Structures are given as structure tokens and as C-alpha cells.
């Protein structure tokens, strides 16, 4: 209810346009699935960073965070729900827009579901990691907009594992297991650190 769906829609319009531009630039080159994957994943990174940054700037700004802290619910719990809502929003929009992205980048539709599952799994960790960096880099007293600089290096394992899983048989369960394990690790750290940072930095 509180997530602004139009805003996510605009972000995915960005993905579609950007992937079309890539497709256009690469039109005479034999593009294999791995290059297309890289394009999709990098666009996904930018989308997640923008989305999470925006939601955190709006929903955890000075006057709102005060109300959250006055709530009997722990801030960690609020952060967790918020992250999951952002996640659901992003996953649904990815699922809706991915056919168009597949067309523009001329990816085989055979791997449609594999890529969607991989995206859904990696988005979990992406959202939870960027929530930490959004909360530290995004507060009012911060003078520089550095969220992406701080966040992108932390995304590299996800990029590597999603592209790397293309090398293996996509049915291999191990790469999916990595994503789950990585998500569990982030789940343990992220709400704790995020709410800690929000409490200390946003006021």
C-alpha cells in the first residue's frame, strides 16, 4: 500500500529503454546469453539502488522515523517489512517487464524461468544490502550522494554468481543455494545494521 508502484513502473521503463539501447548498439553482433545477463543484472543493480534509496529517503526521513521509534514495534521489524515490500514490488515488475527485455536483447525464451528465478533470488540480497547503504549514505546530514559508490562493490558476489551460473548448467542447484545462503546472511545482518544506522544517523 505504501510503496509507490508508479515509481517502480518508471524504473522498469528505464530498464526497458536501457536494454533496448544495448540491443540497438549490439544489433550486428552475435549477443550470447551471458552478455545479455550482464546487461540485465547491471540495470537491475541501478534500479534496486535507486528504488531503495528513494523509499528510504521518503519513508525513513526525519519526521517519519520519529513516529517509527515511538511505535511499540521494533524498528528492525519495520525495516524488515519495508524491505520485503520493496522486494515484492521489484520482483513483480521484473516478471512483468522481462519478456520485453528478453525480446530487445534477443535472449532465448527457453531460459525465461531460470533467469526470473535467479533475478528473484538475487533481488532478495540486493534489497537487503542496499537498505544498509541507503540508511548510512542517505541521511539528511550527509553532504554527498554516495549511495551507489558504496553499494555497487558489495553487489559483486551476486553479479559473479548470477553470471557464473550461466556457465554451469542452469539446472544446477548449487548456484541457487548460494543465493539463499547469501540472503540468509544478509537477513541476519541487514535489519539490525539498517535500523541501528537509522536511529543514529537520521536525527
Amino acid at each position: 500500500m505504501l510503496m509507490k508502484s508508479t515509481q517502480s513502473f518508471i524504473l522498469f521503463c528505464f530498464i526497458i529503454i536501457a536494454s533496448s539501447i544495448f540491443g540497438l548498439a549490439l544489433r550486428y553482433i552475435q549477443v550470447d546469453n551471458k552478455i545479455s545477463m550482464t546487461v540485465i543484472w547491471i540495470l537491475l543493480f541501478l534500479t534496486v539502488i535507486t528504488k531503495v534509496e528513494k523509499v528510504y529517503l521518503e519513508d525513513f526521513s526525519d519526521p517519519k522515523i520519529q513516529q517509527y521509534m515511538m511505535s511499540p514495534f521494533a524498528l528492525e521489524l519495520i525495516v524488515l517489512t519495508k524491505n520485503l515490500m520493496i522486494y515484492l514490488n521489484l520482483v513483480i515488475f521484473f516478471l512483468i517487464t522481462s519478456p520485453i527485455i528478453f525480446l530487445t536483447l534477443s535472449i532465448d525464451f527457453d531460459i525465461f524461468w531460470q533467469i526470473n528465478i535467479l533475478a528473484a533470488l538475487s533481488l532478495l540480497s540486493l534489497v537487503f544490502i542496499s537498505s544498509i547503504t541507503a540508511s548510512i549514505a542517505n541521511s539528511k546530514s550527509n553532504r554527498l550522494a554516495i549511495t551507489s559508490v558504496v553499494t555497487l562493490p558489495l553487489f559483486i558476489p551476486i553479479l559473479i554468481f548470477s553470471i557464473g551460473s550461466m556457465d554451469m548448467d542452469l539446472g544446477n542447484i548449487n548456484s541457487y543455494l548460494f543465493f539463499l545462503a547469501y540472503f540468509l546472511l544478509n537477513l541476519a545482518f541487514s535489519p539490525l545494521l539498517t535500523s541501528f544506522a537509522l536511529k543514529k544517523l537520521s536525527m
Partner: protein
Amino acid sequence: MLNVSHLSFARGNKLVLKDINLSIGNSEVLVIKGSNGIGKSTFLSCMAGFLEPLEGRVEYFSKSIDPTISAKNFIFVGEENFAYEDLSILDNIYYWLSLNSVTPNQKSIHKSIEYLFGRIDMNKKFHQLSYGQKRKMRMLLLLLIDKPVWILDDPFNGLDKETISKLIKIISMKKALDGIIIMATHMTPHIKDIKVFELS
């Protein structure tokens, strides 16, 4: 009973609050005065437990305040609006109530909206409201959630005369009901025996 003893607070290398001692009992109203930028909001944030003081302590019934105590006992109404722009008045209220785990009571919600706004479409989006109406919205928190301590940052700013007198009435009623009210404001409201604390 709220006790502030030897409270100091620093931002960077700057000492914003220095050695403040205060005590507020039940059914008392404390008005904090001082020129702009003197640290009124900072002081209220310290009282509410949002900011950690450099030295000294804030005690509620001789217990140092922590997130559980402040969440249970305090209502904080800050200077800025905290409503969601894209939600309607009613949805915002439902959201605040669920955030405070209060079960919404249709009758009291309608009554309080009517008391403050008169006749208004409750499904109006927040961003469609006028400046004054947006300021009024925050006061609904005071009417709908029942906690003993109110901390109000500049509550009269941007309100018309009529609403100010309504708000003063609400505050006086809370005072009569054993409440503790702390507010930072420039004006002196017409409430019987208030305490004034000048920040300098």
C-alpha cells in the same frame, strides 16, 4: 514524572545543550522557549530518547528512558509533517494507529476528524490538503492515541486562531487527566499555571 538532570548534548565539537536540569510532574505543562536555533528541537529529541545525550540523563518515574519506555509512554509530534503524501486522510490515520498497535475505532476517528476539520472528505489525499490542514493532521495523533506524555515541537505554528484555541483546549484537558505535556513554542498559550523554561 519526568526528570532531566545535568543534560548536555554536543553536535560535532559544538555543545548545543549545556547542563540542563528540569523536573515535570503529572498534570503539568512545560513550555520551552528560546530564539531560533538555540536547540529547542534538539532538547525535545533528547527528552524523547531519539538522541543520546553527551552527559546527564532523562528519567521517567526514576527510570532512565529507553526505546521501550518512550514507545510505551510518549507521543512525539515533530515540527514537520510525517503523513504519507499519496495516502488519504483516513488511510494515514489507519497507518498511524496500526503503527501504534491501536485498534481503530470508527466512531472516535470520525469524531476527532470532525472536531478538528469540520466537514471534510476523509478520502482526500494528503497532498491535496492546504498547508494549515496538513499542520492540523498531526494533532489527530493526540486525539486518537492514548499515552501519558506528549512532546510537541512548535504545535501552534501555521494554525489559525480557532484551531489554536481548540488545541489549547485539548492540552488543558490532557493536563486535567494527569498528563505531562512538554512543548517548544514562541507564544505563551492561555493555560492555567504553566511552567516556562527559557533555553539560552
